[in-house]
């Protein structure tokens, strides 16, 4: 993420600051935006932790009930299942989208005319909202009228893909990938264009083939973008909600109820806001944990510019 790359620049830039005070903005410049962000993002974060300790029907005032929701949470099989489904979707999405996006992005970075035309077409799914994409695919996957009725060979003879848990999970991953691969490949395209041409020329002189060049030059130089793109995928995967609601509605049964979907149902369908807040708190912890872990694993804090030394 830009963020990720910029965080290190802060530290690097700090010591070289001139002592001049004129023209520098005071902290007051940040206050309006900070208050706004505080009210609509930080305050709710504290709120959800508090509400998880209450019983609340959404009409009367929340009643403080201590750890009751949490002890119920720990014994809830639906939560275990939702966590597993969320994890499978998350990993499945990364496994499908990352390789395709990297290959497409690097391919699209080439300056050939036909690539520019095809890239413009590949961009199109990004123009549809997630809701539109999900509604479209729901119809296209219809066992009687949709694609499976015409091309059953492609669906392993199973025309009702959304009728089984495995089929539904495959569909959720496929539809999400269909929509978001264009975005991720765009990130890689931008990054691949920044790889200096001289490196490839030098490698070609040394006799490196196309595959060797890809693995030894392109891929290592894309690492910052890989972190950025994976972060987007992880956060997107943990919060997959609209696609689940519109494509499978958590079904068959509750087989594809992801954590956000379960949270939504508990809160806004059965009006058990207190318990839903406990599920939401868990989701918040997972998301924060995942991004911290990602930062650690990728050595992001030590990350240096890929342009260094060139």
């Amino acid at each position, binding site marked *: 993420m830009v963020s990720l790359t910029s965080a290190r620049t802060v530290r690097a830039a700090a010591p070289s600051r001139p002592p001049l005070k004129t023209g520098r*903005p005071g902290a007051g410049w*940040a206050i309006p*935006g*900070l208050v706004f962000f505080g009210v609509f993002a930080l305050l709710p*974060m504290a709120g959800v932790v508090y509400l998880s300790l209450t019983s609340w029907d959404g009409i009367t005032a929340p009643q403080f009930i201590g750890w009751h929701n949490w002890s119920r949470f720990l014994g809830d099989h639906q939560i275990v299942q939702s966590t597993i489904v969320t994890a499978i979707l998350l990993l499945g999405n990364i496994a499908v989208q990352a390789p395709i996006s990297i290959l497409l992005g690097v*391919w699209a970075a080439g300056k050939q005319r036909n690539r520019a035309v095809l890239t413009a077409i590949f961009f199109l799914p990004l*123009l549809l909202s997630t809701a539109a994409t999900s509604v479209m695919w729901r119809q*296209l996957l219809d066992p009687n009228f949709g694609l499976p009725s015409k091309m059953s060979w492609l669906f392993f003879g199973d025309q009702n893909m959304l009728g089984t848990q495995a089929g539904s999970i495959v569909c959720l991953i496929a539809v999400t990938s269909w929509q978001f691969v264009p975005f991720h490949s765009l990130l890689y395209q931008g990054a691949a264009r920044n790889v200096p041409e001289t490196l490839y020329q030098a490698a070609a002189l040394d006799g490196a083939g196309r595959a060797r060049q890809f693995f030894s030059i392109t891929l290592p130089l894309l690492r910052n973008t890989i972190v950025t793109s994976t972060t987007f995928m992880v956060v997107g995967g943990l*919060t997959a909600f609209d696609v689940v609601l*519109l494509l499978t509605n958590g079904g068959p049964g509750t087989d594809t109820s992801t954590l956000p979907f379960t949270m939504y149902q508990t809160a806004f369908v059965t009006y058990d806001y207190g318990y839903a807040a406990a599920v939401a708190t868990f989701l918040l912890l997972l998301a924060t944990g995942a991004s911290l872990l990602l930062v650690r694993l990728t050595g992001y804090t030590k990350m240096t510019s890929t342009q260094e030394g060139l």
Partner: protein
Amino acid sequence: MKQRPNYFAGLATFIWLLIIGVPLYALINTAIGPQDAYSQNGPLTLPTHFTLSNVTTVIQSGFLGYIWNTILVSTATVVLVLAFSIPISFAVVRGSGWITRGVFRVFLLGLAIPAQAVIIPLFLIINQLGLYDTLWGVILPTAAFSMPVSVLVISGGMREISSELYEAMALDGARPARVLTTMVIPLSRSSISTAGVFAALQAWNGFLFPLIMTQSNSTKVATLGLYNFVSTYSANIPALLAAVLMSAVPILVVYLFARRALVAGLMGAGGK
């Protein structure tokens, strides 16, 4: 340098073209074809009759009003996000002291907050503010959740401005407001437009906030309209797919006229 043709890439991109193209063809073909043709032949036949009846059905249901609401929400979100993020980024990049560094940390942390996780207290806050079932109830949270990315992108852009330029302006005795408007904003234009594109797409795509914060037809946005159509038009698939297609028209227009800016904007989100 001459290279042998890349057959692998050729084959792979052809397959990807089918994966992208076939569903889009099915979408358009169904949306502009008559209903009986769809139920008899499915979505993949060659188009025989062109009809606007599906589009008319969708328009009569008030869908254009939903699209208009989406346009209002997206515009207001972009204005709010930029109005707050530009001064914050300026303070983060040029301000001194622990406060401005702390502010940057807050937004870095903010990246990890999923909207789903805080929707319940947010629902309470919007209700308390009397904004339930208004477009502001959608705009304010959408803008707030676009701010982390926006602040990080814009402050990244502002850091690229060399400190000599700042010093020169300071020697001229320019006050912060003047430095910001005459130098910083023009020089970080590209990162500001990246942040704007990102916030606009976020609002355009938004589903959860409208779902929770609004209920009446007058405040319905396009994504939510589609969700409702699924039950209304369960028997009229061509009309449903026409609505899907129509929901993409405004952004398709933007894409046709400002493709370069849109693509560059999204690419910018990947950082350097």
